[in-house]
């Protein structure tokens, strides 16, 4: 596999803020790569450096084998970018929007309708972008970034501010795009999204990459904790449960955290306390907690 993106010891500061602090990683061709982190982690800055929108203070970047900064016209037709904001021309309809962006890449006019079809907006072709719902605008923005059939796609929080249903629809679309052979780089706040979509995830905080691996590997390598939840009041009094590291009770649910779930579950079964029980394995949230010592707050 060849490397689509190579980032080596990248630094970018805004005044005293170290937005990107000694970041190195590679993305392979065809990979679905995620950058996960809370607000201000440096995700957008990292993407903008790789796209060539900003000049790095230090470090090297190779995007599709090219140096993105200064503005590299050989690179631009090969990458598709969806910025964090939906950047449209004012007062154009969805179709006109696609036609205009497409014309900048020299695509044919019919391509606009194909893209509308792809993102499920064919019935909104004549609607002004200002009148689209948040989710529809996000999808149109995605379509604009794919109009020229790029081999590498950057998506900066494409599912932010979408309702759960719209998010799931967009996930399907993103998987399709990746399956068609495109390398996709996505940033997100959402642990579940990164876990579900990405082949590999870089967890970022305060400008640094704390971990970078397949989500399953990250979770496995963690001294994994399991959360057992029971409805409040169903736990028998004075029950001795082995290996419980933490117990929380929010008045509705009691959550027990343990590294060894089997004996705990056996004892609960013996006491007929399995009604309404929930067992949840470790997630990237636990990885984040482990790495930073903080609860993950998107």
């Amino acid at each position: 596999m060849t490397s689509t993106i190579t980032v080596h010891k990248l630094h970018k500061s805004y005044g005293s803020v170290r937005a990107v602090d000694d970041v190195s990683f590679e993305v392979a061709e065809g990979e679905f790569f995620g950058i996960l982190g809370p607000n201000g982690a440096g995700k957008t800055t990292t993407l903008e450096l790789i796209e060539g929108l900003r000049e790095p203070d230090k470090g090297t970047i190779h995007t599709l084998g090219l140096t993105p900064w200064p503005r590299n016209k050989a690179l631009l037709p090969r990458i598709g970018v969806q910025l964090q904001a939906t950047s449209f021309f004012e007062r154009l309809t969805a179709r006109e929007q696609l036609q205009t962006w497409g014309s900048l890449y020299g695509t044919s006019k019919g391509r606009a309708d194909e893209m509308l079809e792809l993102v499920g907006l064919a019935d909104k072709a004549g609607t002004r972008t200002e009148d689209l719902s948040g989710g529809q605008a996000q999808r149109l923005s995605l379509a604009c970034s794919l109009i020229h059939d790029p081999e590498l796609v950057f998506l900066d929080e494409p599912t932010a501010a979408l309702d759960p249903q719209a998010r799931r629809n967009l996930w399907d679309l993103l998987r399709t795009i990746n399956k068609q052979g495109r390398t996709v780089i996505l940033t997100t706040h959402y642990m579940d999204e990164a876990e579900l979509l990405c082949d590999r995830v870089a967890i970022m905080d305060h400008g640094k990459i704390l971990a970078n691996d397949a989500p399953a590997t990250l979770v496995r390598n963690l001294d994994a904790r399991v959360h057992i939840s029971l409805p409040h009041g169903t736990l028998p009094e004075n029950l001795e449960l082995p290996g419980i590291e933490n117990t929380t009770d929010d008045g509705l649910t009691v959550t027990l955290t343990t590294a060894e779930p089997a004996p705990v579950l056996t004892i609960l079964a013996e006491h007929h306390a399995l009604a309404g029980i929930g067992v949840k394995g470790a997630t990237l949230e636990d990885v984040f907690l482990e790495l930073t010592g903080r609860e993950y707050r998107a």
Partner: protein
Amino acid sequence: MNQTTPTGGAWAKFVSLSRAAMLGFVREKTALFFGLLFPLMFLVLFGGIFKDVGGSKPDVLQIGNASILSQSADAREVLDITKSSDKADALEKVRKGDYDAAIEQRGDTLIVHYSAADAVKANTVQGIVQSVIGIENQKATGQEPKYSLSSEKVEDESISTIQYMTPGLLGWAISMSATFGAALTLVTWRQKKTLRRLRLAPVGATPIIASRVGITMGIALVQTALFIGVGLLPYFGLTLTDYWWMAFPLVLAGSLAFMSIGLVAGSWAKSQETASAIANLVILPMAFLSGSFFPLDNAPEWLQTVSTILPLTHLVTGMQDVMVRGERPSAIVLPLVILLGFTALMTFIASRVFRWDDV
């Protein structure tokens, strides 16, 4: 993976961006109103209100052969005289207000028929006829008249209201839409990251800037056509002089100059509110000080000096010179040079304060 031509097709990109800009403009009702209708409303209002002040001579009908009147050169100079042979018809026309008075001679007596509806005009006509009789009496005595009547209206020396207002308000209209258009587009594009997104597309600055310049000039030309069209309506009575079309280069240079002001405002301002405020702060005082609304002939010396450094002054006076004052085409050279020089200066400043981002 794709067959795009990243470097070629600059023309196609320009055309497509221009189309987008045009659609964006015509679909915004406020911009349409403030750019096209609002200034035109001023023209209609001012043109209408000051229509009669503008030095039109009283229109009188001369019934039959009123020799005292037809002999008097003085009378012809200050009255617009139309001959009529039908007295009843003439009186009817005065009654309807088509004419200010009808004058008839019976023997040695001049009779002025007027309508009480417009007492001011009637008085004027009577006054004039009175003095004409005085002069003719004097002549009849065979003596050289010691005093003579020379009635001079100030407006005849300069130009009448509609003549003055059309280029003035047009200049103001162009300055407003060019400045606001550039400033607001720049701020919006920065806020919505359209600027950054464009930077990621394989398109040079030229087609993007050219499309914005194109739409701005297009709007200015539409404004010019509307203003001249409305002014030429018989009701307003605009009269264009020979080289009126030399106003077009000025209109184009003017829209460039004000676009460049908008670029400075839009580069500097972070929000649309600030951008509009700056644009207003610059354009409104400039409109007053440049003589777009009224002549500055009676303004203090220092104000007139200030006026000469304003680009709008040069746009407006340049347009007045060729459109209504009958100046030769060479009259636009100096204004044109000043406007283009101003554009270069402002564009340079804009490039210095330009930012891709808000933060």
